[in-house]
């Protein structure tokens, strides 16, 4: 048996165990950066919690265990718990991830959890999202088409539809924008997520607002701030090729007439 086959065998065995609802639990230490202006003013600190978790649990489940049985003051945002609502972006072991898409078995025995960077921390893992959404709103994130509406749908070829498919996946979790060193240094930069959402319309064959958006993104707060460090692409929980989308927009601004 070569290694590839053995690898597959292990995967199958692993999934069988999961399907069996394996109850063996593991010890996980969560090191969490805390901030609570009502308790300690502007000082942040670290707390450590040791819990027993099912290895198949999400890190979000582990954070819930801390909140529900150890420290009720721990504050975080979450909702859908399966990577779609975009509430629980955090810095997990130094990388921006959604807590509901990190599995305990991948981080035992110890995991470090911090708020995403570059946005003001309000309490523990909760940051002020308003600057992020202001960036999003600034790129006119809606279809612009004043040519009148047909009775039925506008036609769009599957190829034209495919052109902007990747950037329609954005869930506005801010993992990309808050992983960007340029954004950390200068919050005037609209950031990767805003550009992704501009991209989604610029390359939509039904849209007529590309020129206006490109003007906004050609500005000093726009795409040319990007230094292609690819942090954003690595951080995106939806697998969007964020850096590529930014490069698409740069190229269009430089070489295409809109």
């Amino acid at each position, binding site marked *: 048996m070569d290694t590839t086959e053995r690898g597959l065998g292990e995967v199958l065995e692993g999934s069988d165990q999961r399907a069996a*609802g394996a109850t063996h639990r593991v010890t996980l230490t969560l090191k969490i950066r805390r901030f609570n202006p009502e308790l300690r003013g502007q000082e942040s600190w670290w707390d450590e919690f040791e819990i027993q978790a099912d290895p198949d649990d999400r890190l979000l489940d582990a954070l819930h265990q801390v909140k529900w049985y150890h420290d009720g003051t721990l504050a975080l945002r979450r909702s859908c718990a399966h990577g779609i609502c975009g509430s629980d972006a955090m810095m997990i072991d130094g990388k921006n991830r959604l807590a509901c898409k990190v599995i305990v078995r991948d981080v035992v025995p110890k995991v470090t959890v911090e708020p995403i960077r570059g946005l003001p921390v309000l309490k523990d893992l909760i940051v002020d999202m308003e600057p992020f959404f202001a960036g999003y709103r600034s790129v006119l994130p809606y279809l612009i088409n004043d040519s009148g509406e047909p009775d039925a749908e506008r036609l769009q070829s599957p190829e034209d539809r495919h052109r902007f498919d990747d950037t329609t996946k954005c869930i506005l979790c801010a993992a990309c924008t808050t992983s960007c060193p340029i954004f950390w240094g200068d919050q005037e930069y609209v950031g990767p997520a805003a550009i992704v959402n501009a991209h989604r319309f610029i390359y939509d064959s039904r849209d007529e607002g590309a020129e206006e958006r490109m003007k906004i993104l050609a500005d000093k707060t726009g795409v040319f701030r990007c230094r292609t460090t690819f942090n954003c692409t690595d951080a995106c929980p939806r697998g969007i090729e964020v850096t590529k989308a930014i490069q698409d927009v740069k190229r269009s601004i430089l070489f295409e007439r809109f």
Partner: protein
Amino acid sequence: MTTFHTYDTLIVGAGGAGLRAAIEASDRVRTAVISKLYPTRSHTGTAQGGMCAALANVEEDSPEWHAFDTVKGGDYLVDQPAAKLMCEEAVHAVYELEHWGLPFNRTPEGKIDQRRFGGHTRNHGEAPVKRACFAADRTGHMILQTLYQQCVKRNVRFFNEFYVLDQLMVDGACAGVVAYELATGELHVFRAKSVVYATGGYGRMFKVSSNAHTLTGDGPAVLFRRGIPLEDMEFFQFHPTGVYKMGILLSEAVRGEGGVLLNSEDERFMERYAPTVKDLAPRDMVSRAIFQEIREGRGAGPNRDAVWLDVRHLPRDVIEEKLPDVTEFARVYLGVEPTRELVPIQPTAHYAMGGIPTNVDGQVVLGQDETPVPGLYAAGECACVSVHGANRLGTNSLLDIVVFGKRGGKHAAAFAADAELPELPERPEGSVRDTVNGLLNRPEGANAADIRNELQDSMQDLAFVVRTEESLRKMQEILVGLGERFERVYVQDSGAVFNTELMEVMELGFLLDCADALVAAALARDESRGGHYREDHPLRDDANWLQHSLAYRQDDGSIRLEHKPVKLGPYVPMERKY
């Protein structure tokens, strides 16, 4: 400190129904949306498979066939005029979303592509029909994004992370709401002529659920506490294909695209239960079939308490282009590679057919004669029109939120345009203030997570796919005990800034209210229909039960039930075969 605001129309909740209502109302009157989440976090975003409308882009179809399927799928508890209206308005609703930029998948000719979905058939049940308009397997995400984009364009006023905890009523009419601001702990009184509730479902009362942690029946419970009845609460949908143990939804689109269910003997067992449409039977039937297979020893997996979802035979491009998210869920959460492995699934608590009773204009209505409550509206999953009856068909929820969100928003705004600004009751925030202070000042007490776990575990055991009088009576006793413990619940965080623990306790209280109503109505309904299956009364009983139930919270805390007839139409109830 209390802050006062005045608006014409308020929308509570910012999912699909709330945002669609906001678009409609904000064009007409002074409107604000109050949401406990950022709008794009709303659970509409997790809907996957599609939104049905008889566009006939791919196959012959008609709104009338769609209406028939909706009524039959709902096991004839559907109000037929409402279903007819929804299916007729569906076509325009899809075009409108497309005009607003929704990136639907396309046919080679560039039209909106359509695919099959459970219970949707050609010519009254002849064969499955391609009726579901979709954007890969993230149709809900695209609807939520598109509607939010339109709100951004219109500069709609949002109060994000404001949690509505009380409805203000004066002389039986709506006067506004009281909300708790999460960031500061401050209370806000919103005086308004009309309010549209669009707060979604309450699936979190069950242990295995596809619902977000935040789906806790807030809107229905707030109104229930103010004397508004809840309709058809016993009808809850258990979706057949949830991720084993976790409940994360694996869309019916998987079967729409050709995926099949297998038992431990590798048998495609749905052929026995629904010979014509097989794996595309309505969800209640498929969930019961799975339950039956497991009970008869043909459950799959080492514990024999799951069945397999099989997509190994599907073309790779169908999996990658049309089902990418679902495939990733299996990989991330089960460690399974669906292109070559079977995916273990089990039914998951998914959708509330019941809720706040409304008419087709979104007006909240009272009693058997359906008297509208002036200024009060509801739409989407928290409402009961009723277009889903005893079992909702797949995709009809996205359709419901768009059609009735629009109608609710439009009528709430029209009402507000003509109405005087209502007077506020004395000390309008008093009730909420007392509750919050009581919780924050309690030095010790019961653990909320323990109460919630026990609620979820016992609802799962006693009020899930299969129910009996005995199980429901036991559940009722448990709920009494949980309610008593909740009276003594303890909040460790006494702070004002983002006290999410306090918020979770409020949510738990609302869940307990919804569970009380669900169990009381389920106990009374001694028949089986749609999502409500009583093993001790396994047949549908049209002679006695072709009627909706209404649950009222009485002053002494008990629940009173009354019933109102189903609005029938052209479709005569017959045995449901697929």
